[in-house]
């Protein structure tokens, strides 16, 4: 049995630095700040309990797997009959910007506002993919693990979605020059 002090040290070294990323990802997949906090708390507890089996390699990938399972359990507890879509992204997992974000929009530049509009207009699976990679900062491989799809699927969705957002900016007459206009 690993001593408690060593477990706590390993937890502080590998898990604590990932809390913000976990919170970002949890918000993306739950669509709710409150649910995200619950899921991350559950993830932290599961990670601590399972830390003896963690080999020290790829802590983020390990934590994202735990988070994904914690989220699945949460959804199962709440909605036992929920169906999953063919891509493995549960239908209820929306990434609509929260009310907290709305207040900030007023002060954002026209460029940022146009980007947000283009982002909001994306199909749901694409939007969640963009959110995990471009907003939350995951790699394509990490996002693939969260979504339960192949990395190639993430890349193709991501590239199509970015091109679509780029086209939306162009149609809106928004071009980037020296700085966002």
């Amino acid at each position: 049995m690993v001593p408690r002090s060593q477990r706590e040290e390993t937890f502080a070294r590998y898990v604590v630095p990932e809390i913000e990323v976990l919170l970002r990802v949890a918000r993306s997949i739950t669509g709710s700040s409150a649910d995200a906090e619950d899921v991350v708390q559950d993830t932290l507890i599961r990670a601590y309990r399972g830390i003896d089996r963690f080999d020290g390699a790829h802590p983020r990938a390990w934590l994202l797997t735990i988070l994904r399972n914690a989220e699945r359990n949460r959804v199962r507890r709440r909605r036992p009959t929920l169906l999953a879509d063919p891509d493995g992204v549960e239908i209820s997992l929306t990434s609509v910007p929260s009310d907290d974000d709305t207040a900030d929009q007023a002060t954002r530049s026209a460029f940022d506002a146009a980007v947000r509009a283009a982002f909001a207009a994306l199909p749901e699976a694409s939007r969640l993919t963009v959110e995990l990679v471009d907003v939350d900062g995951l790699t394509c491989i990490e996002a693939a693990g969260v979504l339960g799809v192949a990395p190639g699927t993430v890349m193709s969705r991501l590239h199509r979605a970015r091109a679509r957002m780029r086209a939306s900016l162009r149609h809106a007459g928004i071009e980037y020059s020296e700085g966002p206009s």
Partner: protein
Amino acid sequence: MRRWWSRRRGASDDDISCREFGRLLQRYLDDMLDVDAARRVEHHMHMCDDCGVEAETYQALRRALRDSGAVSQESLSRLRDVASRIAEAADADHDHT
């Protein structure tokens, strides 16, 4: 729009066409190119105005998305507090379940 054959401003062995640049740009943004390919992309974006603007626009788009995703500092603080006393939290959760 500048055509792929029309770019000429200090041509070198690192030159790629605008079409090739367009094909590689997304993977460049995701740090998925090898060092040589990334260097060619960077060389092209500095040589070709149109492609340079295209790359800057995508980078600005990603920055705007990233800025839109700030998390609640209160949530973060609460979770860090849980993490700082994780052994107790795990025991309490175990007792509760």
